């Protein structure tokens, strides 16, 4: 049963610096980094010691809460450093790559013939489990539970997002293997959403339910699609996987190797010639952007401008990211910026802001907050960019005063921080919506589980 999804509420943030559909190889990175912060709520335990050699796919660390969940090395080489912060909390694992790459052989599998338990243990063993995330709480899926459905959003509506149709080109076999395997893990269906006018690789696959999505961002957010297709109720669990991670899972099944390679977009107005690059999970930012940026103060983001993480040149490509966005920093004052007419920034109001006149203009936004943090004042604006059947301001406030009962009633099981990226973007009071929601989800995870 296919069901098309069309949303009206939302906002497309059109930015300059979209990646041209040309793929080059990025410089191969010497050092690869894994950061536990990419795997929210996971407390890492080292699988091997500093100085030990390891192959691509070999476990570097595992989850303290569930030692079956392993986190593999994207490359073969040597674990050269474990960087620790306060209270010896692990911040990063550094792996020096070998010139000759060696892979752990997990064995070629036939997904059609595999049973659910086999799929599960295979994915856990080969370190592909962290690619599967769950709702509620937007954390790595709990392997002991069975989801009512699995959702894959193959439609990227975020600003400057990498085009899935392009990066997945020629990956039909891998995708098919992955979805066939995953379909064993759920009692429901594997729902895949693609853009309405796209020529997606998913269109011809078996074992999936295809949905066509149209409308402004966040139509590509998986929460939006879940809400339209099969909303999460209390006590239910759904899993989500991104298409590019499906490719890695598929390759594992077909070849027995954990291949961390992925095509990412390097985009944003501070990039000289935005295009796509082939690199690996955990590669250093330097290896991706070196020599490709304008000479102005800029912010490098692993991920898109709404949900990504700020990185410096020594930083690394995030575990789940398929885009590096670079935009100018906005650390400058603007005279009478609060009352003069605005043409160069985006606004959903018409309060002497004129972006409503130019719906197709592309903007060169910087990181300035355009104002100071305030208490919530304006009402009714969030709802215009928020397509879920949830009261955004009320749920944010319930997170702030930590009323678990109310958070649950208002729909916390259905949301992820990224769903509040747009309300955060337009927030007149400059409140940190995503952080508030993340803290709220963490509290629920801790108290309710």
């Amino acid at each position, binding site marked *: 049963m296919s069901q098309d999804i069309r949303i009206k509420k939302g906002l497309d*943030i059109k*930015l300059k610096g979209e990646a041209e559909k040309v793929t080059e190889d990025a410089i191969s990175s010497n050092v690869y980094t894994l950061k536990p912060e990419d795997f929210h709520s996971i407390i890492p335990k080292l699988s091997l010691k500093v100085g030990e050699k390891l192959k691509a796919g070999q476990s570097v660390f595992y989850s303290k809460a569930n030692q079956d969940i392993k986190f593999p090395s994207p490359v073969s080489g040597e674990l050269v450093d474990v960087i620790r912060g306060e209270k010896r909390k692990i911040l990063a694992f550094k792996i020096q790559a070998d010139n000759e790459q060696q892979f752990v052989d997990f064995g070629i599998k036939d997904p059609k013939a595999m049973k659910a338990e086999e799929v599960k243990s295979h994915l856990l063993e080969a370190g592909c489990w962290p690619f599967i995330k769950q709702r509620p709480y937007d954390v790595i899926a709990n392997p002991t539970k069975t989801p009512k459905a699995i959702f894959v959003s193959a439609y990227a509506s975020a600003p400057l997002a990498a085009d899935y149709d392009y990066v997945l080109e020629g990956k039909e076999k891998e995708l098919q293997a992955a979805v066939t395997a995953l379909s064993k893990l759920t009692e429901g269906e594997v729902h895949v959403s693609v853009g309405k006018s796209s020529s997606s690789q998913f269109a011809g696959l078996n074992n999936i339910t295809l949905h066509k999505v149209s409308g402004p961002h966040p139509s590509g957010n998986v929460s939006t699609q879940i809400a339209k297709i099969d909303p999460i*109720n*209390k*006590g*239910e669990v759904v899993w989500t996987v991104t298409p590019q991670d499906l490719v890695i899972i598929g390759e594992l099944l077909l070849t027995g190797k954990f291949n961390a390679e992925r095509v990412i977009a390097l985009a944003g107005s501070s990039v000289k010639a935005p295009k796509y690059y082939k690199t690996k999970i955990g590669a250093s930012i330097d290896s991706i952007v070196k020599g490709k940026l304008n000479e102005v103060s800029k*912010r490098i983001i692993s991920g898109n*401008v*709404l*949900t990504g993480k*700020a990185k410096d040149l020594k930083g690394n490509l995030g575990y789940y990211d398929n885009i590096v966005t670079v935009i100018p*920093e*906005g650390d400058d*004052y*603007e*005279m*009478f*910026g*609060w*009352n003069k007419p*605005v043409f160069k*920034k*985006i*606004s*959903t*109001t*018409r*309060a*002497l*802001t004129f*972006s409503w006149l130019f719906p197709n203009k592309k903007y060169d936004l*910087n990181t*300035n907050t*355009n*104002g*100071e*943090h*305030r*208490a919530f*004042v*304006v009402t009714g*604006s969030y*709802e215009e960019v928020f397509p879920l*059947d*949830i009261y955004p301001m*009320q749920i944010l406030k319930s997170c702030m005063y930590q009323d678990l009962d109310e958070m649950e*009633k*208002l729909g916390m099981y259905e949301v992820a*921080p990224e769903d509040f*990226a747009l309300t*955060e*973007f337009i*927030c*007149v*009071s*400059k409140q*940190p*919506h*995503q*952080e508030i929601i993340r803290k709220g989800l963490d509290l629920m995870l801790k108290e309710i589980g």
Partner: protein
Amino acid sequence: MGLKEKLHNIKEKGKGKKWAPAFGALHTFLYTPNDTTHSGGHVRAADDLKRTMTIVVLALIPCLIFGMFNTGYQHFQAFGEPVDFLSWDAFWIGFLKLLPLIIVSYVVGLGIEVLFAIIKGHEVEEGYFVTGMLVPLIVPVDIPLWMLAVAVVFGVVIGKEVFGGTGMNILNPALVIRAFLFFAYPTWMSGDKVWVTGAAERANQIIEGANLDAVSGETILGSLAQGTDLGYSVSDMFFGFIPGSVGETSTFLILLAGLFLIFTKVGSWRIMLSSVIGAIVMGLIFNSVVDFGWIQEGTKFYTLMNTPYWHHLLLGGFAFGIVFMATDPVTASQTTKGKWIYGFLIGFFSIMIRVFNPAYPEGVMLAILLMNVFAPTIDHYVVQGNVKRRLKRLKVKTA
């Protein structure tokens, strides 16, 4: 070194100091700060609270300037030496009367805001931007300045700061100020002398024995409540050539301001529209009571009940109240459905209070304050609807 750098250096020096919020208020007035995003999204839309508030103040300016002309015009009119409406004489009187009110309102109000910001160590918030401009427009022009100052202190401290400042208050601070004046100094806030500048002074002179003619300083509502009709034309009422609070008289300019607020998406059109609907419904009910002959001519409420329902929209502070004060997002209902209910009831109660409370014929202030109190309750029930829908979905599933 330019001004920008100089101010930046002072800001850096002041970090963590007591005076930092006071300096920050001035600094951010000149320059949007150099703050960058450090959590969540990396870009932000252009609007901040200052811009939002400025739009409202901008919308108030035409009412203010018109009010200055009208203050003088009504003064000369009442004293029997009429001048042209758009004359320098008229404007000058109004300007001299209003400027001190504006200064007192802002100096006292912002002073308290800065004081609280320093005590609590946060930035000075913009809420008083609008309140400070509203206050001079909704009080009688002849109000003594000390009285205004006392009221502003009460309104800002009790109406806002005790709840935690801008965004946390339950009642609209400007209306708290006005309500305080109304209940603490009723003779200055109602009656037939206060609405035209000079009328009260003339009355005092007469009492002291001066041989002068008494001057009426009454609003149309005041006279209607007493059963008399001053005979202003509808066009006078619509364009605002009538006595009343400074900002409230010109329904025409308020209508334009309302459209501006709706266009800029700063004011809620739902609240404005539903208030008008509410007022019309109540007005029609009263009109029908008269039409059915359930109330006799000459009885207490007859004149006001007999006022055509659409006249009510033009009279008194109704238009001003619903455009500028009912729409205050902090004290109004926050949900879309709630806004319809909230607005409707404000309109409904405004006209009801106006008709049934002849001692104080302006109902919109009390109606808004009343609904401010009930706004969270309305929202609660609206949100419960969403909660129930979610629970129902679960039950259908498990059934």
